[in-house]
């Protein structure tokens, strides 16, 4: 069951990616489970802009070692990472 908070996080992530990353690559749509690396939305610089967004706008600290495909590959995975850091136990 999704709470209002979870929906908001995913929406924010999607919006950031769409406006700040995808659009600069000429990409208009992407699904929540699509690989943002394979479709070219995120490149080596985009990775860090995404992390900065997560830290500054979503309030989560992302360590260098957490910057990986498992955590950042898709909207769903990013949302999961954020939730795992904001939910307590």
């Amino acid at each position: 069951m999704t709470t209002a908070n979870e929906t908001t996080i995913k929406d924010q992530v999607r919006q950031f990616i769409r406006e700040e990353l995808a659009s600069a690559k000429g990409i208009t749509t992407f699904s929540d489970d699509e690989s943002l690396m394979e479709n070219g939305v995120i490149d080596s610089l985009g990775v860090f802009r995404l992390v900065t967004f997560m830290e500054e706008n979503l309030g989560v600290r992302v360590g260098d070692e957490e910057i990986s495909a498992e955590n950042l590959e898709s909207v769903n995975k990013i949302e999961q990472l954020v939730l795992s850091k904001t939910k307590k136990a």
Partner: protein
Amino acid sequence: MAYVLQQLLTESAVRFPEKTAVWARSRSISYRELDEQSNRLAHLLKQRGVKKGDRVGLFFPKRVESVISMFAILKAGGVYVPLDPQAPVDRIAYIISNCGIRVLITQDEKRRALDVATRESLELCVVLDEARESGNGTRVLPWSALSDFAASHPPVITLIETDLAYILYTSGSTGRPKGVMLSHQNALTFVEWCADKFQITHEDRLSNHAPLHFDLSVFDVYNTVKAGATLHLVTEEIALFPATLAKFIETHQITVWYSVPSALVLLLLHADLQTGKLPHLRTILFAGEVFPMKYLKQLAELLPGVELDNLYGPTETNVCTYYKVDRARLASMDKLPIGVACENTEVFAVSDQDEIVTKPGESGELYVRGPSVTYGYWGDIEKTKKMVIPNRFQGNFEEKIYRTGDLVTLGEDGNYYFVGRRDSMIKSRGYRIELGEIESALLSHPSVREAAALAVPDEVVGNRIKAVVAAHSLQSIKAAELQQHCATRIPRYMIPELIEFRESLPKTSTGKVDRVQLSQESYPIAV
């Protein structure tokens, strides 16, 4: 000694049949498998009509089949054309048409993304995944069809070193990419030089970071195979994440690394590299762009035992000069030289007075002479004639030399130092980008009246791209729209990150867009 590239494989398959040749995406193949699979595919291609000199495209993300295909095409006497799996289909279609590719090794999904006309023009597609529909008759074959063909020997063909081996497409200033034609001799001149200079042995483990359409990969693939070493292909999901990449280097115990400097800078900044963490790494080669000195110094300090070499050279000649970092000197250097000519290559700088530079402190355009120089650009005699020219400095016999368009200075230490470009070609993340190609893409949008693409210096990637655009009056366009439009024509890394709209662009007294003024007005893009 090998005179065509595939002989490197034949020899290593005899010496090291069971050794791992290539690793990619958790799969690996031995030298015997690489040899046999490429033999089979070569027979398939030959049976389907591939003749000596025919261009065969490779269009799929890196995997072991990439290397199998490269060797197979060579064994069939063909010329392989690696196509950027991330390029827009329009660009791929252009290249397929431009050099007359009739056979493509690809994935069915990518085949179907091509426009109908391009698809129809292909006589054969070998697809790595299962073709979803049959009903294409025999024009689409699955990879599994290889098993119908002989594995023990390649087809019998007559091929010599001056025959073409591959074509690499690079950014073109007039809006379309150009295909650099490279022969077996061109490639082997470079490969032999590297083998000797960097002493690659069968115990080495090389990475392949660069895309296969980028000539850094020539070292990775062929120097690995020549030595009987193992090649580890770096794919997107590893390359994009510095921590993952560092782990990859550590886990695979990579001994020799070759990449653009920006990949190393990102590792330095974000992968928590510590002294002793990459104990197997013995040599790092870098090329493609200027390595910011402050980062190079940090890297050198973190990896004290590692040899560091700066390699320089355009796609048209592969590497033509090199400089081995002198660690004792490094601290006091503020500029890294591109060095001196590789053995079996000659370089010289030509001044504005059209004389060869001989005195330290003098500058000129760098020219390259020798067996690594390309024949020219496929199907573009005009452009070829401009850059691959008769050697007017030598009158005993006819030969061609290549003018790089790079301005260099001869240093007191006998090394050449890179100064800048004559034209509007820039490097970003090591990628060669003609600003004109970006401008062409922008101008092709119906609402754009004027456009200029500019490089905005960036300390990590060299340059970022900004565009300044004037729309036709009474029309307005959004940046996102233009970026989308660009995405259909040029690769992602060329799309301007920032687009500024103006009523009109500043002009020089001759009526051309005043780029100098535009550059001066620009500000660094904030991350």
